[in-house]
């Protein structure tokens, strides 16, 4: 088939299945990035435009931990996740909360400003060169019949599921988790029963950033890092969050897998470049026709 010079091929079911399975692995990472975004949206009701640049920053942290400390990227998680939490907490408490005066559209623009600062600082200090962590096991893996899964992919899938589960348990069983959910549901009411809303905002932002830091560790063996590497992920994470429903954890997970599989199949059928149009198309259609997404409750 030929469509304006774009050739659409026909494949055997093994190839398609193999592509879909690699989409599941990719989707796990998207889900993890989207998880942080959806949490922040659920509580603060804003899209965090700095999310992608925070991911990029965490990827640099993992890379430098590997270069200077010789840390394995998965071990680096022990440093970058608490570091990410602290950074996110400070960012919300010290910058975003301070300048926004509680106005949503200003929070939106403030996160965009932060994204500009972080991205260009990376450009300025680390240059635009692409860098990548080299691990010994990045090409080893398990043969799944229709496709070959390398260990970094399997670890990314397992890690994402585990972190989602932990976060869910945290939200359901701890006092802080309950406070976060209370603030997300009813800000004024939560304030009245004595919850420190500013603190909860910052905690949520911190957890969101910690999720991104964990994602960075899981991504490090398979992706290069450069100042713009967050941009692509953040666009996809926006799509995942909108598809799954803003503020919904299950939605982020399911949405991540749907987008991962769609992207891989899109690449298979439409080619590396045009394949990405499937993501933009889903994004636009969901925004227009079902802005609450698959699992979201609140209309915008």
């Amino acid at each position: 088939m030929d469509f304006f010079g774009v050739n659409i091929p026909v494949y055997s079911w093994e190839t398609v299945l193999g592509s879909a399975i690699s989409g599941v692995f990719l989707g796990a990472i998207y889900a993890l990035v989207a998880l942080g975004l959806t949490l922040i949206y659920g509580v603060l009701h804003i899209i965090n435009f700095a999310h992608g640049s925070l991911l990029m920053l965490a990827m640099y942290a993992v890379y430098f931990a590997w270069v200077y400390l010789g840390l394995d990227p998965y071990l680096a998680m022990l440093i970058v996740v608490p570091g990410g939490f602290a950074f996110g907490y400070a960012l919300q408490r010290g910058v975003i909360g301070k300048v926004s005066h509680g106005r949503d559209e200003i929070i939106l623009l403030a996160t965009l400003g932060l994204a500009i600062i972080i991205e260009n600082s990376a450009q300025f200090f680390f240059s635009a060169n692409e860098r990548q962590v080299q691990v010994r096991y990045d090409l080893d893996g398990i043969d799944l019949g229709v496709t070959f899964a390398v260990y970094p992919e399997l670890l990314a899938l397992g890690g994402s599921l585990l972190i989602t589960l932990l976060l869910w348990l945290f939200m359901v069983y701890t006092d802080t988790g309950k406070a976060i959910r209370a603030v997300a549901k009813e800000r004024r009411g939560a304030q009245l029963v004595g919850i420190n809303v500013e603190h909860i905002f910052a905690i949520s932002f911190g957890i969101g950033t910690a999720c991104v830091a964990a994602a960075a560790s899981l991504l490090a063996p398979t992706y290069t890092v450069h100042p713009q590497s967050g941009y692509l992920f953040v666009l996809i994470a926006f799509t995942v969050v909108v598809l799954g429903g803003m503020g919904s954890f299950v939605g982020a997970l399911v949405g991540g897998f749907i987008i991962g599989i769609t992207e891989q199949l899109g690449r298979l059928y439409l080619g590396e470049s045009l394949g990405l149009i499937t993501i933009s198309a889903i994004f636009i259609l969901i925004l227009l026709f079902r802005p609450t997404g698959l699992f979201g409750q609140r209309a915008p």
Partner: protein
Amino acid sequence: MTETGRTLLWATLILALVAMPLAVSSGRWIEFLEFTLFVAVLGQGWNILGGYGGQYSFGHALFFGTGAYLQALLQFKFGFSPWIAMWFALAGGIAVGGAVGFLSFRYGLRGSYFALITLAFAEAFHVLSRSFISITEGGRGVQLALNQDPERALAMFQFNFAGPFLRAYGFYYTILIILLLAYAATWWMERTRFGAQLIAVRENEDAAEALGINAFRVKMGAICMSAGITAFAGIYYTQKFLFIDPGIAYGPSKSIEALVAPIIGGLGTVFGPLIGAIFIHGLGEFAKEMIGLVWADRPGLDLILFGIILILVLGFAPRGLVGISEAIWNRVRYRIRTLRSKTDA
């Protein structure tokens, strides 16, 4: 400040811009001014929709890129004259604006959602312009042929081989004319019924509707006007550089450039985008010079500064530089008045 005083001030600023080439002869300065005015036009495009209409678009590259691509492709593929291609590029930009506006406003997208959908459309166009190689030349971009015939410089809208005056100042006056048209249109809009309705929709859409304003129609008008001005910036870009590619046209940097200047200068004011553009690019250039003395030239510094100023303005001067200067002026006037009344007594 009185209306006459303000008009006088702006008239002086415009006159200064018109007469600028008399004062500066260095090519580098003219380049800098051209770029600043270009950003001021881009910013005014954003300001119509974002500043006056309260609809924050994060994908204005959509309109810039469409204008730039149509201007390039109509000449490259079909041999259009640039002066004819221009109108199609303008119409194309407005049409894309209208289509995106129709979809977004029809389905009631506001705030974060509107920002997201504009971003999504810009990204979709980015992917499409990179992928349909038979139409757009793909990632290689479109390179227009350089006209080397001085006789045809004006006909080809290319000043590289024109006479000495046009070669030096042709594009400066081109962007200045575009700027004056865009700013005059904004100034006029502010004084029409449409402008008042747009501001009402920004302040409170539901209340505006209750007063009988058709918010959908008002927002459609705003996005079309906004897209038209932004597409004009794209047309200028293509003629100036004779080159466009998917990253320049639809990448995120033009969308960001478009919104930084008006926010810093003053949202919803006629001259905010110009003041913002002059301020940030002046500062950016200065910072580059300073850092160039101690460090090798590295990209990114000016944008770091823009980001910091953006956040500071958002937090502490929501009405931008125009707001700050008006506050200072009012205080000075108050001082003078109190001093006067004291001396009178």
